[in-house]
C-alpha cells in the first residue's frame, strides 16, 4: 500500500481539527459561563456565543459524516481486535454526541419560556420549531448536561488514545490526521 494514501483526505482533516476546536470551545465556554460567570450581561453574551458554536458543531458534524460517505475512508492502523472494537465504539460515541449535544441544546432554546433568538455568528437566525414547554425544557437541559459531561470524557479518552497510538505503539493513527500529513507520511 502506498503510504501516502493512508492519510485522511485534506477536507476531513480540516473538518476534524476545526470540529475539535469548536467542541472544546463550546464545552469549555459552557462550563465556564455556568460555573464562573456571575454577571448577567456577560452570561447573556457568552450564551449567545455558545449557541453559535454549538450550531457550528452540528453543521460541521453532518458535513463530516456526508464526506465520509462519499470519500474513500481508509481502514484503521493494524491493531488487536479489542482495540479496534474499542476505537470503533468510541468513534460512534463521539459522532453520536456531536449530533445529540447540539440537538439537545437546540431543544433547550426552543423549549424554554425564556426564548432568546439564536443568531448564529450574527449571520442567520436559528429556527425554533417547537412551542415553549417548561417540562420539555427541563428534560432537554438535564440531557444537555449529561451529554456534555459524557462528550468531555470521550474527548479525553480519544486524545489519550491518539497519544498512546503515537507514543506507545508508534503507529500512524495520529500522524495521518495531521494537517501536513501528506509531507510527513
Amino acid at each position, binding site marked *: 500500500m502506498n503510504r501516502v494514501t493512508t492519510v485522511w483526505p485534506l477536507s476531513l482533516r480540516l473538518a476534524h481539527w476545526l470540529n475539535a476546536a469548536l467542541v472544546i470551545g463550546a464545552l469549555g465556554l459552557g462550563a465556564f459561563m*455556568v460555573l464562573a*460567570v*456571575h*454577571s*448577567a*450581561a*456577560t*452570561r*447573556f*453574551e457568552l*450564551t*449567545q456565543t455558545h*449557541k453559535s458554536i454549538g450550531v457550528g458543531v452540528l453543521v460541521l458534524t453532518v458535513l463530516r459524516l456526508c464526506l465520509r460517505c462519499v470519500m474513500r475512508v481508509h481502514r484503521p492502523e493494524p491493531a488487536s481486535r479489542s482495540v479496534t472494537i474499542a476505537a470503533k465504539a468510541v468513534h460512534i460515541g463521539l459522532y453520536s454526541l456531536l449530533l445529540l449535544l447540539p440537538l439537545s*441544546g437546540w431543544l*433547550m*432554546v426552543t423549549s*424554554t*419560556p*425564556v*426564548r*432568546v*433568538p439564536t443568531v448564529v455568528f450574527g449571520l442567520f437566525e436559528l429556527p425554533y420549531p417547537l412551542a415553549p414547554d*417548561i417540562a420539555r425544557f427541563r428534560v432537554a*437541559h438535564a440531557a444537555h448536561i449529561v451529554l456534555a459531561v459524557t462528550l468531555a470524557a470521550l474527548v479525553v479518552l480519544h486524545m489519550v488514545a491518539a497519544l498512546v497510538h503515537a507514543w506507545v505503539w508508534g503507529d500512524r493513527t495520529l500522524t495521518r490526521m495531521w494537517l501536513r500529513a501528506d509531507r510527513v507520511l
Partner: protein
Amino acid sequence: MDRSMIARWLGVCCLSAILCCIDAHAATPAQGWRIDEAQTSIAFTIDAVGFPTTRGHFAHYRGRLLIDFDRPAKSYTTFTVDAASVDVGSPSFNDFVKSAALLNVERFPTMSFASTQVDKVDAHTARVTGNLTLLGVTKPVTLTVDVASDPAANPAAKSRAVAFVAKGRIQRSDFGMTFGIPLIDDALEITVKTRALSDE
C-alpha cells in the same frame, strides 16, 4: 442558556420621590424642585433561575417634583422614562431587553409614573402611591421613600437639597409582561435614587 434573563424592564420609573416629610424645614407652600441628574438613578433588579441577578437602569428620563414639607399630601411627582435608554450591561443584552418580548420599546417608547398620594410615615419616610404605566398598562404601585436632607446643602445659601431613595416591588405580569415566567421572576425590584434641589 439563556434564560435568562432577563430582566427587564422595567422600569420603572418611578418615582421618586417625593416626598415629603422631612420636618423641620422652612414652611413653604408646595414648590418646584429641580432634580439633580448627577445624583439620580432609576434602577431595577430581577432574579431568574439558573442565571445571575440582572441589574439595570435607565439613562434618560424626565421628572418633576413638587414638595410641600408642611403638607406632604400636597407633594407630587411625575417621572417619564425613555424605555430605549435601558442599560443592563452589554449591547446585545440591551437589545434583547428592548425587544418585543420585554420592554417592547418600539411600541411603548416611554414608561411613566405619576403620584396620586403621598403619606408621611415618619420624619424620614414617606409612602408614595401612584400610577405606573408600563407597556401601555396603568396600575397603581406604592413606593417607600427614605428622605434625607443632604448634608452637602448649605443652609446659609438660599438653596436646599433633599435626597430620596424610593423602593418598590411590582409584578410585571400585572402589566402584561409575562416573558420567561416562571424561570424569570414575575416580581422585580425598583429603586429610584434622586436628589432634589431648590433655589428658593
